[in-house]
């Protein structure tokens, strides 16, 4: 351990604003990228399913009409 207490760790020997700004911006961008990718996947799958359901129901309607 390079620090004696949590407080000392948070203060980073007087360099807290620099160290934490750099780390927090990095973490925020990386976590944001992952959340964005997950959201993107979910919404794409939802659209695909909706489109597929619509295609299926149209297909069955046509079959009923033909009969």
């Amino acid at each position, binding site marked *: 351990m390079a620090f004696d207490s949590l407080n000392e760790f948070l203060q980073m020997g007087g360099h807290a604003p620099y160290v934490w700004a750099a780390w927090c*911006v990095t973490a925020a961008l990386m976590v944001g990228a992952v959340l964005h990718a997950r959201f993107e996947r979910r919404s*794409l799958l939802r659209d695909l399913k909706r*489109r597929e359901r619509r*295609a299926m129901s149209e297909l069955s309607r046509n079959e009923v009409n033909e009969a």
Partner: protein
Amino acid sequence: MWAFIHKLGSPKWFYGISARMQPWFWIAAVLLIAVGSVWGLAFAPADYQQGNSFRIIYVHVPAAFLAQSIFVGLAVSGLVFLVWKIKVADMAAAVMAPLGAAMTFIALFSGAVWGVPTWGTWWMWDARLTSMLILLFLYLGVIALRGAFSSRDSGSRAASVLAMVGVINIPIIKYSVDWWYTLHQPASFTLTSRPSMPVDMWWPLLLMVLGFYCFFIALTLMRTRNEILRREASKRWVRDLAREEG
């Protein structure tokens, strides 16, 4: 070899294989970054000159490595797409560009913040900093150019060409610290020679670099799969997939 490349180029095959590879890269990324962060932030000894501000290195260097590697990735994908018409290469390029831009931004931002206590200034027009700023503009150019055409294929070709031309900036960034007198220090992290820093500082940096690369691979696999779903939405196998999962 050719059969392999064309198989790799098939979106359906890629979608399957990437699903199996993805979890391993996520696990590796989370573990490496978690251990590297705790080690680097709390256990590595403070630098004898810079004190604790040197801990910025653990996000600055991995981000800068990725920023450059991803641009080389864009150029290679562009070449593969233009020469062999492999669609997956273009999809990968499309999703890699924003991540590369984000990594370039992180490298510039963390460097600026680090410069204040270390150099007494957050910006200097020196060769390394300027060539990194140009890299950011190249990324933004590639992203904008891709979206600037009404046909997707034209946008893909234009973005590929710009990436292949812009990659000339990468050796300039790499050697800028040797060719010119810069405020930025020369490379302090290499795998080929003995570390120029204490091993307790070097190990967490190695873990962070590897972790960032795993993160990049995992995220690129994930978003390329998204891109496949988007572009191949009308293909039989994608529709079957949607039906099975729904």
